[in-house]
């Protein structure tokens, strides 16, 4: 019964010496050496992917970044505290006052679930990690996972070497790092992983043609659908791929099995996400996904019937079917369009085809900087050498096309198109560029190093060609040495390119993508100034205002106020109700008396503005003000953009219009600023962002009073007064 055995007798364990022997025997095999090397490379890639994203934590602190992540963080807290079902049913009464927001039904919960599960697992393992730290490090963690998936994808597309290159390139591609540094707790952090995984598993399913592999791809699709609205990209790309394969005559039964299974299981799974629900069947954004499924069934039925019927009968059948299908299809479309169920002419649809559509007609879409069209510079900035390597990869894909590389080509071409429309979609293009470049780089490296490593083999290989062409052996030898130096040069150039790529990535990450934007740092060394005004102001709200106080600000700051200030906001970054945002825009653009009426109707207790004139912080509300005017004017025609432009010029200097200088936004921004000397040698009220003196220095407030102004005047909060007691 005793568990402790006496040490006498034959010992079951292997001695150190024999263990060493086994390891040595094992390691002398080439295959296992390669495996070990590969594992080490992958571990380093994983660590690199994780660590390169930690600049922000090291330089600032472990803090959630930007705007949207604050909502995700707050939701995750709710999920962890209230549990799954309460989160699913969450009606948030603290945002969009007084409309409220059905968060449970309007959110992609994948990110929150991921973080909550990671948190629960760490709790279970008795690792006391704060939820905030889990959220901060989710993105780097998933970046490592994405690099591993890139390895598998590359392996599936071509070979192991391609996989390794893809993993390494993916780990540091700046286009992806931009949305996955530590603290960037946004949907994209896990969604890119889900996207690449879905594509990898889809290619694998097409290659294998089994139901099991397609079901696996469908589950990856569920994760994507639960995480990010760009799941529509997948469910349009895959049908497009199927159509291309069909047209190019590469359609096979494997694709049929993969697509049918993926469609059935994937649709059912995606419909379980509350935000998607029946949209997955009814939405015209997914028309091709469902249409291709029906088309495949019809095709297979026809193929089946042809084997059973005579040629003449079959011809008649095809004719009848085509006519019937055409009639039913036309009638159905007509009914749907007339009844309003099918409306393809929405703004979103046009935006994809015509990149300038949103800018012209939907100000709220155009006002978001990440919705702007991409410039060429940002391709170089975000992809660097991949921009040049990817076309080479396309060449290799076309040279030896397989089902997988055709998919990659389709993916890459569509992703490049979309990334040109919106800066944000650079994120989707980055994996495509990485994979194409990996194919290019590994192909070049393979061919170059193979010939370099085995000159004898190269000789034997080349000699028949040489003799056929009637060359002498002397020129043959010379040929070999030239080839050798050419190959060396190719290798050197490749390494140089890769080296510059990696140093560029590190530089970009460190310089451009690691700022949390909630804490600002300007200057270096002894001149370093930390502007922590946002948190200062939000914590002031949290500790000094009534718990049910309502704060009105432009929607950009809504998530931060609710998450950090714990106060109700009128509008926030989930811009689901344009009218409500326009109402706030109207209040900001009106004169104080008009604004007061609006604010009273909305129960506003505090008005918050971001002001950069003192500190030089340029993305302040005065610079965003024209968007408020446009969005407000889009719904309420009393607000006219021309009233705010002095001779077509947007200015708050003395040339500014009276409407501008009397607007609530101007008053709240510049209240008391007219007495302040900001720069030596300039007059009072010198705006350091706009670089001129403001137009109206004596700002009087009647219906509000200043409640709080942060240290560098970046955040200014005003209390809305009650009605006068005696009038």
């Amino acid at each position, binding site marked *: 019964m005793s568990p402790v055995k006496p040490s006498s007798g034959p010992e079951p364990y292997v001695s150190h010496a024999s263990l060493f022997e086994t390891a040595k025997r094992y390691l002398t095999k080439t295959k296992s050496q390669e495996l070990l090397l590969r594992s080490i490379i992958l571990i380093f890639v994983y660590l690199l992917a994780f660590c390169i994203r930690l600049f922000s934590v090291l330089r600032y602190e472990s803090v959630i970044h930007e705007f949207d992540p604050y909502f995700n963080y707050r939701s995750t807290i709710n999920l962890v505290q209230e549990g799954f079902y309460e989160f*699913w049913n969450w009606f948030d009464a603290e945002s969009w006052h*007084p409309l*409220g927001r059905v968060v449970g039904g309007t959110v992609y919960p994948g990110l929150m679930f991921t973080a909550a599960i990671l948190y629960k697992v760490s709790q279970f393992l008795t690792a006391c990690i704060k939820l905030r730290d889990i959220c901060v490090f989710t993105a780097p963690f998933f970046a490592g996972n994405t690099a591993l998936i890139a390895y598998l994808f590359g392996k599936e597309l071509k070979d192991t070497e391609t996989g390794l290159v893809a993993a390494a390139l993916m780990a540091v591609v700046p286009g992806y790092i931009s949305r996955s540094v530590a603290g960037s707790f946004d949907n994209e952090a896990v969604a890119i992983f889900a996207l690449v995984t879905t594509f990898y598993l889809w290619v694998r399913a097409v290659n294998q043609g089994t139901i099991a592999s397609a079901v696996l791809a469908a589950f990856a699709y569920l994760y994507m659908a639960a995480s990010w609205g760009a799941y529509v990209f997948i469910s349009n790309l895959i049908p497009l791929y199927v159509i291309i394969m069909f047209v190019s005559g590469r359609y096979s039964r494997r694709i049929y099995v993969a697509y049918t299974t993926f469609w059935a299981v994937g649709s059912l799974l995606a419909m379980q996400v509350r935000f998607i629900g029946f949209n997955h069947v009814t939405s015209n954004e997914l028309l091709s996904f469902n249409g291709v499924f029906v088309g495949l069934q019809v095709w297979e039925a026809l193929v089946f019937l042809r084997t059973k019927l005579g040629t003449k009968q079959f011809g008649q059948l095809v004719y009848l079917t085509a006519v019937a299908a055409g009639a039913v299809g036309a009638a159905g479309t007509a009914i749907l369009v007339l009844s309003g169920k099918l409306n393809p002419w929405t703004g979103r649809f046009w935006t994809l085809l015509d990149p300038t559509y949103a800018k012209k007609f939907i100000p709220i879409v155009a006002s978001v900087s990440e919705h702007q069209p991409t410039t060429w510079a940002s391709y170089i900035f975000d992809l660097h050498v991949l921009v040049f390597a990817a076309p080479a990869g396309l060449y290799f894909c076309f040279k030896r096309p397989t089902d997988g590389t055709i998919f990659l080509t389709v993916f890459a071409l569509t992703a490049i198109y979309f990334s040109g429309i919106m800066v944000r979609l650079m994120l989707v293009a980055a994996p495509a560029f990485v994979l194409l470049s990996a194919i290019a780089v590994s192909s070049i490296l393979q061919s170059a190093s193979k010939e370099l490593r085995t000159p004898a083999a190269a000789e034997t290989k080349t000699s028949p060609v040489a003799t056929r062409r009637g060359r002498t052996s002397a020129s043959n030898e010379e040929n070999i040495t030239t080839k050798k130096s050419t190959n060396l040069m190719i290798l050197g150039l490749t390494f140089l390119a890769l080296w510059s790529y990696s140093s560029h990535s590190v530089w970009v990450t460190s310089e451009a993508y690691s700022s949390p934007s909630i804490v600002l740092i300007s200057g270096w060394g002894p001149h370093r100034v930390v502007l922590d005004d946002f948190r200062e102001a939000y914590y002031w709200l949290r500790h000094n205002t009534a718990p049910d106080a309502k704060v009105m600000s432009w929607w950009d700051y809504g998530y931060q106020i609710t998450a950090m200030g714990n106060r109700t906001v009128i509008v926030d970054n989930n811009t689901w109700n344009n009218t409500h945002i326009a109402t706030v825009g109207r209040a900001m653009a009106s004169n104080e008396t008009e604004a007061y009426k609006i604010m009273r109707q909305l129960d506003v207790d505090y008005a918050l503005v971001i002001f950069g004139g003192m500190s030089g912080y340029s993305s302040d509300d005065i610079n965003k003000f024209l968007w408020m005017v446009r969005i407000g004017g889009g719904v309420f025609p009393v607000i006219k953009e021309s009233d705010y432009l002095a001779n077509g010029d947007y200015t708050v200097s003395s040339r500014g219009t009276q409407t501008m200088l009397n607007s609530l936004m101007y008053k709240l921004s510049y209240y008391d600023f007219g007495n302040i000397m900001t720069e030596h040698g300039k007059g009072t009220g010198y705006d350091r962002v706009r670089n001129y003196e403001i137009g109206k220095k004596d700002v009087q407030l009647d219906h509000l009073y200043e409640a709080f102004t942060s240290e560098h005047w970046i955040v200014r909060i005003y209390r809305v007064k009650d009605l006068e007691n005696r009038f």
Partner: protein
Amino acid sequence: IMARPLLLPLVLLAALGVTSASKSVLVLLQNVNTADKYSKFFGSLRDYGFDVSVKGVKDSTLKLKEYGTWLYDDLVLFAPQTEGFGGKIDRQVILDFVDSGHNVLMALNSDASESMRNLAAEFGIDVDDRGSKVYDHFSHATLNGKEDHTLIAGGNIVDVPVMVGGPYKEPVLFRGIASVIPGDAELATVALGAPSTSYSHAPKQAMLEPPSLMVGSSISLVTAVQARNNARVVVAGSLEMFTDDFFDAVVTVNGVSTHTANWAFTVTLARWAFQDRGVLVASNMRHHLLGSDEQPWGYRVNDDVEFLVDVVEVDGGVPKPFAADDIQLEFIMLNPYIRQPLQHDGNGTFSLRFKVPDVYGVFKYYIDYAHCGYSYIKLTHQVPVRPFKHNEYERFLVCAYPYYASAISIMVGFFALGFFYLYNK
């Protein structure tokens, strides 16, 4: 929990009892020696339990506030000609006094000083120029055999018994200055309006051409203002109307000899001004789902709910149940979705049962009761209304039976066909 409904009125009573016992009134006279002229007025106030202290307006020991505490509840200004105050009183102190919920009764006359005029203007009342008087060549009174066209006897007493008492058979005598209330004044009520045949005129000043006079019923003789914090201010254009002489006068109006209603009118109005009449106290606001006593955090759309609130009217320090059919409850999200009068049960409990609209959002209960003569009731209470939870929808709808049938039949059909295809070779 059973004791709570009982306990609350008791506590309320106790609180009111304490405040009513210590209702102290400071009266400032132009000349403290003339107090006897108003002895009946002050006597009546004392009879109603007010602690009246009379001082001269230039008394150097005057103060309303000491160490942050208000020393008086009410202020009577019977010093129309004074330009300033003695001691630590000035205009701003009086305004702060009102803004912190205390009451002011001020009486003016034709020689009202600039500072008094400005004070009245702070309450939204425009008093006519210095030296002007209200004339009426038709409905004036003859006092002691002397016909006086500035002794107005036909004033229109506002039909709000809670504020001025009445109805009165006798006229209220008035001799003094006119004032007007701007059209957009929301808080002022004309307690005594001028007859339609009257006008205001300064006999020693040159008449403007064309004459711009305060004329007829646009003139307010006595104005009652209730500020948004329920502080009350009464501005009377005549100081004389508070005197014993006017109280006891027997006058002839249009040939008919009559007593005056000044005593009852002024004392009732003063009691109203000093929060002794027409004070409503709303308390114990509560709401719940029908069939449950618990007050929830919020509702679901289409819930049936009941809202209740207790309102008592405090008269002379004694609370009694209030009864009115015009208290409205609104259920607002941006716009009122429900606006219904509350039902009362006779014991001061007002209630309304209604169905929550089929709209989710952050609603608020809102009562804004501003009945003339009564203190305002303004209550807001926020309740979120949430949509159905995902598991609150009905399962197995009758209208969906065809879909269930089609789903089940296709499963059966698939199974049967598969079985047939596989095993029937």
